[in-house]
């Protein structure tokens, strides 16, 4: 029996999950390739399309926007209907949004390889893609907020606050940061110049990390962790307070990317202070997450998906501690412009974003098709490969980064640099080789996941799931 014939629209989630897995494999493969280019620089074989400068952008765009956003759209569509007890608002628009995003990513990826590049970090795509992204993003907003508007229960569950902030803030950042004057189809010039451009870029860049790679994925955590642990979040009030404190302090942390640059001193200091303040809401969520799992430890022995989610929490804690530390100006003197930053990025990207998404997919896909996971053993293998990969990656980059920072700062007795840039870079080879192996290990685990989930879903249909019956007032 169905409720008013209504059922949740889950096909779009299933497809988005598949697309996200595709982009994760492509993104990580290109990551491993650029890592290998840093060990053997000649493996671009003289082709521009294989050059480091182009492939690196392909890597960052496919992992963040292809993998990350597809996964966030999939889980936002899945959870918003359930937490509102209604099917998606405007399901056709949801399909437009899901497929349009993939088309944009494909075209965008090819354009990056062809050398089109707007020159802004994490916003390299040229203006035709920027406009397409804005249109798709607005349709995402309509579907998401439309579903919330027609909800059948009064409270707006906390995961929706995070997904909602992701949608609103990213729209604002993308539109302002992309303001440019087009000169040809493949070239435009930013409306901002010099220091202002730097400030706008890092206002965009850091808040993209904040509201997309942190906030968006916290939305995923707050829905899927309780679901998975089969118990409510430990302190709901703390989650709401953490949300607002997080939103309030993140938005002004961006200038920590511009320490010792030509931006006013007070802007840099404010960026540092706001970054330190961020520790509180970040760790409030960590505590909330750990305490939620605390009652379900026994599940960790048997449930690989929960293992991924718990490990992702540990890396979330690590990355959100390390970030504020690196924002302190005296630490930044050593860490800035070194591989320490790359280590920090990947402890978050692999340890937090990728692991929580993998855990969520292991939970989600079998439920969508109404089947058991094809192989728990393979999922366990994936877990250990992922853990080994991320640990080795981060250790290699910490080693490389701290040595670079210290060697660059070292002066001889007459006050000249003790080591040349070239010498320092030449000594990095072992670290870069280790990072390549680490990346390959992590990638191999993701291939196992893709196979496992494919075998789970193969030949099956999406099961029909209906919203629960309406609760009578006062019942």
């Amino acid at each position, binding site marked *: 029996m169905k409720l008013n014939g209504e059922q949740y629209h889950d096909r779009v989630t299933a497809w988005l999950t598949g697309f996200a897995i595709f982009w994760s494999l492509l993104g990580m493969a290109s990551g491993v390739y650029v890592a290998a280019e840093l060990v053997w620089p000649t493996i671009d074989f003289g082709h521009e399309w294989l050059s480091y400068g182009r492939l690196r952008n392909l890597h960052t765009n496919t992992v963040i926007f292809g993998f990350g956003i597809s996964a966030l759209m999939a889980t936002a569509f899945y959870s918003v209907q359930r937490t509102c007890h209604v099917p998606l608002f405007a399901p056709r628009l949801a399909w437009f949004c899901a497929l349009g995003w993939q088309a944009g990513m494909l075209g965008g990826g090819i354009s990056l390889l062809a050398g089109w590049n707007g020159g802004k970090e994490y916003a390299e795509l040229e203006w035709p893609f920027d406009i397409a992204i804005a249109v798709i993003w607005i349709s995402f907003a309509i579907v998401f907020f439309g579903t919330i508007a027609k909800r059948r229960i009064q409270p707006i*569950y906390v995961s929706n606050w995070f997904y909602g902030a992701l949608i609103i803030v990213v729209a604002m950042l993308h539109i302002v940061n992309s303001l440019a004057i087009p000169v040809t189809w493949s070239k435009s010039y930013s409306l901002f110049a010099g220091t202002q451009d730097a*400030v706008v870029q890092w206002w965009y860049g850091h808040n993209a990390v904040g509201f997309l790679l942190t906030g968006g994925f916290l939305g995923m955590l707050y829905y899927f962790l309780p679901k998975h642990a089969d118990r409510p979040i430990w302190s709901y009030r703390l989650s709401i307070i953490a949300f607002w404190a997080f*939103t*309030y302090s993140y938005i002004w942390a961006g200038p920590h990317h511009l320490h010792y640059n030509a931006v006013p001193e007070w*802007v840099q200091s404010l960026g540092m202070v706001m970054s330190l303040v961020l520790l509180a809401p970040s760790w409030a969520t960590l505590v909330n997450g750990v305490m939620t799992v605390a009652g379900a430890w026994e599940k960790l022995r048997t449930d690989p998906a929960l293992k991924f989610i718990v490990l992702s929490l540990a890396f979330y804690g690590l990355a959100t501690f390390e970030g504020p530390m690196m924002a302190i100006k005296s630490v930044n003197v050593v860490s800035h412009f070194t591989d320490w930053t790359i280590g920090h990025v990947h402890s978050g990207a692999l340890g937090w974003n990728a692991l929580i998404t993998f855990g969520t997919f292991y939970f989600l896909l079998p439920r969508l098709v109404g089947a058991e996971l094809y192989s728990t053993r393979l999922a366990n293998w994936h877990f250990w490969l992922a853990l080994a990969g991320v640990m080795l990656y981060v250790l290699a980059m910490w080693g490389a980064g701290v040595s670079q920072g210290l060697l660059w700062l070292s002066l001889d007795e007459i006050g000249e640099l003790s080591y040349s840039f070239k010498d320092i870079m030449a000594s990095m080879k072992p670290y870069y080789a280790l990072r390549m192996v680490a990346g390959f290990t992590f990638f191999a685990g993701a291939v196992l996941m893709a196979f496992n989930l494919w075998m789970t879903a193969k030949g099956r249909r999406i099961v*029909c*799931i*209906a919203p629960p019956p309406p609760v009578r007032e006062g019942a």
Partner: protein
Amino acid sequence: MIWFLFLGDMLVMAFMAALAVWALWGSSDKAVDQAAGIPLNDERRDG
């Protein structure tokens, strides 16, 4: 531009913080528990 971004951000955030206080105002323990339990009872699989 810096001041514009700063003041703009702070205004938006002040609005959001006010909204949060308003939203949490008077929420009883029962209402909070109910909200926390949303993901645990959000689907019917007999459809």
